């Protein structure tokens, strides 16, 4: 929609020189990068589509193998020890399979080993979590065991999809446990607020800090994804939360969004102060009418745009209409009142657009 | 060039829309009035607001043997009684009508015949006024086209909702 995609037709050489001139990289970096670029022609990273295919394949095959192991009773699913043992066994196997895959560059062998390894780590993780949960007979062990296994494997097992899925599963498991566990019903709301703070903080840090290495990219997506799930829970299951908890989360989101605007303005381009204030005002209004989903999708759009991250931008663009529709569809008003609210909100947004036009802020070009 | 074509299309659209309004208004003004007995039920529509589901007693007056011989679409001959409530006489087959007899269009489904509309739209929150509806008031022209103009209660009075008399 808005990505000006006309590339400036620079060559790799031009790019490196420009970056060095602006002190983004030093001489040593430059020569290392130049060397890498010339050497790696024609072999590049797997695109995201292929990774998804690997993930889907591993998902199906691990289900079939777990089914197989369950039916032939090689593993006693009631014995915690057995499950944990086989879980660890499969994970170790997965680690070495991936090692073998990395050492051999031949496409067929590499792909086959990667596929087997991913399938194996999925089986291993499921068994391990199931084993620990059986051992302690506590529902709380599901998120805890996921956390343990994710922490252990994150740095050892270097696969983007596994890192993302494992972290996401852990965060979602915590959420599901807090929502469903009977024993903690008294403190459910406080725990949810704490979890929300953690997810919010994690996502803010991971998505806005620019010094992090790429190892943490899947983790940052996991945080963003579970935050979306969390906000979906707030929006759909409104009765899970009492008003104070709901207001608290809204305030947190609003504050985070204002922080985000500041970050984007400072990092990407110095926006005029006045428009920055207006954006913050808009955020406060959105927070006030308590629509966390709309705020979150806007935040994703802004982060994605600032980071040149298409996954986040597209995610935000997809979520925004869904949350908008949901918000206006469920608002407790008659159709006539809804109509007035909708037209008014639309008019406010258009007014914002004309304001930009009037101040000529929509023509800003790079200095 | 594009703008000119746009202009042509725009005029065309507006002409069609207004012509449709004119046709309905003509039928409403010149049509002959008849009542059909109802059997109501009720949920709501998304884009058009509140509405009530309608069914007509007339639809049950036809036996399935009679129905089997008919085409998918056609006309019924109905005869209004002293209260102007129409009842089924026969399927229309191009013959001359007796005085007072009227035509009304129907279409066949898998099981029975249907007279449109099967719904009546009203302002959100006005459902309470229409609970007493017993008849639908139609305007019909001589070719069998019809228009549902109002719902009528058991005393044969048109239901006109008014917010004041709550």
């Amino acid at each position, binding site marked *: 929609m808005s990505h000006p995609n006309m590339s400036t037709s620079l060559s790799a050489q031009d790019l490196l020189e420009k970056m060095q001139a602006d002190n983004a990289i030093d001489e040593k970096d430059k020569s290392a990068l130049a060397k890498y670029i010339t050497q790696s022609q024609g072999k590049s990273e797997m695109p995201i*589509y292929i990774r998804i295919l690997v993930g889907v394949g591993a998902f199906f095959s691990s289900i079939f193998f777990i089914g197989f192991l369950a039916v032939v009773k090689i593993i006693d699913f009631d014995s915690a020890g057995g499950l944990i043992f086989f879980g660890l066994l499969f994970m170790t196997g997965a680690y070495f399979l991936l090692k073998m895959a990395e050492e051999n560059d031949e496409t067929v062998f590499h792909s086959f080993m990667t596929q087997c390894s991913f399938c194996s780590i999925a089986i291993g993780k499921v068994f391990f979590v199931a084993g620990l949960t059986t051992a302690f007979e506590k529902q709380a062990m599901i998120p805890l065991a996921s956390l343990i296994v994710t922490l252990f494997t994150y740095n050892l097992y270097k696969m983007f999809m596994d890192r993302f899925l494992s972290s996401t599963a852990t965060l979602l498991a915590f959420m599901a446990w807090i929502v469903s566990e009977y024993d903690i019903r008294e403190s459910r709301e406080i725990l949810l607020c704490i979890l929300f703070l953690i997810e919010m903080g994690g996502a803010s840090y991971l998505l806005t800090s620019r010094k992090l290495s790429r190892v943490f990219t899947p983790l940052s997506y996991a945080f963003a994804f579970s935050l979306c799930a969390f906000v979906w829970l707030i929006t759909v299951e409104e009765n899970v939360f009492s008003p104070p908890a709901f207001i608290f989360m809204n305030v947190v989101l609003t504050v985070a969004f204002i922080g985000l605007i500041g970050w984007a303005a400072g990092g990407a381009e110095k926006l005029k102060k006045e428009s920055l204030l207006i954006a913050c005002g808009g955020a406060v209004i959105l927070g006030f009418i308590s629509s966390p989903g709309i705020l979150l999708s806007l935040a994703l759009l802004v982060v994605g745009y600032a980071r040149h991250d298409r996954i986040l931008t597209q995610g935000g663009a997809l979520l925004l209409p869904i949350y908008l529709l949901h918000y206006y569809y469920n608002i407790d008003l008659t159709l006539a009142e809804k109509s007035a609210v909708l037209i008014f909100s639309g008019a406010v947004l258009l007014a914002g657009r004309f304001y930009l036009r009037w101040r000529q802020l929509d023509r800003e070009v790079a200095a | 060039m594009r703008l000119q074509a746009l202009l042509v299309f725009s005029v065309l659209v507006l002409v069609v829309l207004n012509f449709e309004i004119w046709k309905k208004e003509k039928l409403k003004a010149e049509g002959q009035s008849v009542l059909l007995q109802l059997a109501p039920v009720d949920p709501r529509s998304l884009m058009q607001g509140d509405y009530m589901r309608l069914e007509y007693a007339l639809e049950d007056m036809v036996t399935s043997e009679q129905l089997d011989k008919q085409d998918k679409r056609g006309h019924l001959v109905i005869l209004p009684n002293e209260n102007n409530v129409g009842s089924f006489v026969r399927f229309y087959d191009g013959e001359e009508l007796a005085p007072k007899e009227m035509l009304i269009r129907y279409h066949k489904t898998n099981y029975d015949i249907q007279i449109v509309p099967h719904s009546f739209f009203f302002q959100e929150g006005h459902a309470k006024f229409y609970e007493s509806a017993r008849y639908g008031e139609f305007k019909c022209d001589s070719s069998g086209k019809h228009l549902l103009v109002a719902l009528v209660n058991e005393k044969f009075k048109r239901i006109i909702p008014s917010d004041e008399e709550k």
Partner: protein
Amino acid sequence: MSDKPELSLEQIPANRALVEELYGHNLINQETREYALDLLYPRSKWGLWASYFLSIIGSALILVGIIYFFAFNWSKVPIMAKFALVESTILICLACAFWRGIDRLSGKLFLLSASVLVGVFLAVFGQIYQTGADAYQLFMGWAALIFGWVLLSQFAALWIIWLTIMNLFICLYWDQAVFPSHQSEAFIFSILGVFNASFLVLREFLLYKKPSSMNWDWLGAVWVQGILFLAALIPLAIPMHQAIWESSYEGTLAAICGAVLGTIFHVLAFWVYRFKIPNMGALSTIILSLCLLGEAFFGRFVFKSIDGDGLSFFIMGVITIAMFTFAIVQLRRIHAQMEAENVPS
């Protein structure tokens, strides 16, 4: 990978893929990545971006507001006033479209609003005259009336809206006017698939063959391709799955027709997006769909012919790994070849 001569640093184009690759191999950090991308795709256009965004969301909200206003079905407002209101809104939108000119985003948005308002008019018309018409008639009239505007608009969003209306019309018409028998029910998938696929073909043809001197760039956005591609692929893949799973469908013309069309679509799409218009996204989707079909096919075969124990699970696990490995190997080869041919990903 290829026998092409090594390029020097000056000859290698700097693009998004290159920067992402350096980042992917941890040679640069996020900050440097963004810095490089800022250089390559100057994006100091926050204001412009916000302006587009506000226009689109703002007009969408107002349009929905107008729909809700009429949905309330004010009994106090006289009939002619309601019609006058909708029609004058349509007129205002059209006038604005003329005034802005339909080459600018604002003019296109006004035309789009006018098109949506025609639908509102038809809904109000049905409401006032209690036509109780089958819903397909509303969508049919709507699609027919706005077709001229859509044709002239050169606006992908309006085309997608028109196609959505047409898809709804086809589905409702099938359900409310055709009364399909149990055997012919499945034809709807073939109809929808072929309908949507023909627009996909049209898009690719216009965009890449450029049959006239007209500017077809407005069709270029990736999301347009994505929506059309999925709108064709999904209805054509469903009868293939049905043909595999449901034995009651065996032999009915509808299922066979859908499955044959689906197969043709998969083959043609693979050929086109591999050789004619290389496109990794579309290719991967086709291959994923083929893998899912393979899962269904082998699944049915294995679980039906081998009873009980775990053997069938085991075989399916092995088949899955083998099949996906094969698919991934093929995709990676294609990817490498495309890179060598310098296809932007």
